[in-house]
């Protein structure tokens, strides 16, 4: 019980003779060295990254200072005058209409001159799904070139199925029940596939993308377009 344990005699280690680090100025002197190494390392990495970025980077000049592409000798066979004539023949002879669906603007043009710039409404780009039948419609204004295929004053609209689906109404049994003579305003210019440029009861939303793909104009602007754009007028939609 009273046995006492004796601590083992410390054995002399070969390192014992070595000077033992004592709390003094030396460790404090090492700390900045470590910091320095870290800082130098970081600076090296940053410098390397900058050098790599510079070498991998681009040198720029204004675009006007760049030489044209090397001319293709085969192009020399084409007759410059003839190509210019062919290109000119593609240009619309009279008025034409440009529809900017992204900005909801319509421009009536004659050659390069803007005759009218009007605020319009183009398609929402939204999707309607009839869950009962699985039918889907996308209400987007088409892009590309169309032609005014027909015109009608005081047009009536035959409401398509999607208008009933959207409004949660049952489909009418008679075709005559689909006719709505107020929605299209005073004039309609037909562009094919059911798309039109027409008037609206909702002039308050001109400038917004609210339609089912048609292009709506305010009454005054529509009248100008109606008068200037005969059947056959080109309509460019983008």
């Amino acid at each position, binding site marked *: 019980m009273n046995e006492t344990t004796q601590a083992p005699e410390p054995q002399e280690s070969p390192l014992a003779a070595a000077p033992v680090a004592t709390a003094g100025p030396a460790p404090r002197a090492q700390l900045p060295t470590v910091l320095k190494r870290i800082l130098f390392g970081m600076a090296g990495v940053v410098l390397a990254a900058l050098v790599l970025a510079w*070498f991998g980077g681009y040198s720029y000049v204004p675009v006007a200072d760049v030489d*044209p592409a090397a001319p293709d000798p085969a192009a020399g066979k084409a007759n410059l005058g003839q190509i210019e004539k062919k290109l000119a023949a593609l240009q619309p002879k009279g008025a034409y209409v440009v529809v900017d669906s992204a900005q909801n603007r319509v421009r009536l043009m004659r050659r390069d001159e803007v005759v009218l710039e009007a605020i319009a409404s183009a398609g929402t780009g939204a999707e309607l799904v009839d869950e009962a039948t699985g039918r889907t419609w996308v209400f987007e204004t088409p892009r590309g070139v169309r032609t005014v295929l027909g015109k009608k004053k005081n047009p009536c609209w035959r409401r398509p199925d999607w208008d009933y689906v959207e409004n*949660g109404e049952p489909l009418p049994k008679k075709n005559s029940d689909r006719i709505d003579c107020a929605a299209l305003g005073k004039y309609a210019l037909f562009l094919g596939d059911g798309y039109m440029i027409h008037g609206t009861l909702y002039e308050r*939303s001109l400038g917004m993308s609210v339609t089912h793909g048609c292009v709506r104009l305010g009454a005054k602007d529509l009248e100008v377009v109606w008068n200037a754009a005969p059947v056959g007028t080109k309509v460019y939609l983008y």
Partner: protein
Amino acid sequence: MIRLAPRALPALLVLPWLAVVAAPALAASDAKLQRQAYLAAELAAARSKAFYLVFDPGAAALDLKIEGVRVHRFALDRAAFGQSRMAGGGERRWPAVVYTLTTDIPEPERPRIEIQKQEDVDKALDEAIKKAIARGKKPAGELPETAGEKVAKQSRVEDPEAPVSFVLEFDPGLVLVVRGEPDATDFGGYLRRLRYSLVEGWEGFLLWIRGDAPAARIVAWLPPGDARRLYKALTPELTLLLYAPPPA
């Protein structure tokens, strides 16, 4: 040889004069070939009935065209042509006259129209309005909000609009970097430019490591609205033409 030298002397004297006279003629013939190449390419693009872009370096403008008709001109605030230092710089020359867009244009996210309940429509439509519409007249009262108007309002709040800054890759070897932001010269602008050039540099370096040649690039600054409009006008495999002016 020594005896021939006096005879060759007049010819030697004429040579510099010939060079001076012939150089503009050669340049004019090059300009004509370039114009021919551009117009031939434009005719093919115009006949395709698809939209195409024409980049005019002289005017710093990008024209959206169809059937040879310019439907919109994107006037650039600034445009710069860049060549990779890794590729060795070399002569500053446009790679080609005709380019084809190779970047995929994702389909836009489409909001879904909420089908209206009939009782809500009936409640919203005043009797007088109903009668006017049935008679084909413009009703006097305030019309209820349409599904389209609801979508437009919802889109304004939720829809992350088309991007203002984007990168388009064209074949052969051209990248168009669109920056829909002011090319600011203040400190913020400087920092932004620094960030862009660092990212661009590392990307170029990675390409070089992979053994790919970094393509020439145009960086175009334009107003944010125009950048969005340009993005919305993009179509798959869109053609980009490099404008060549008529020879002087």
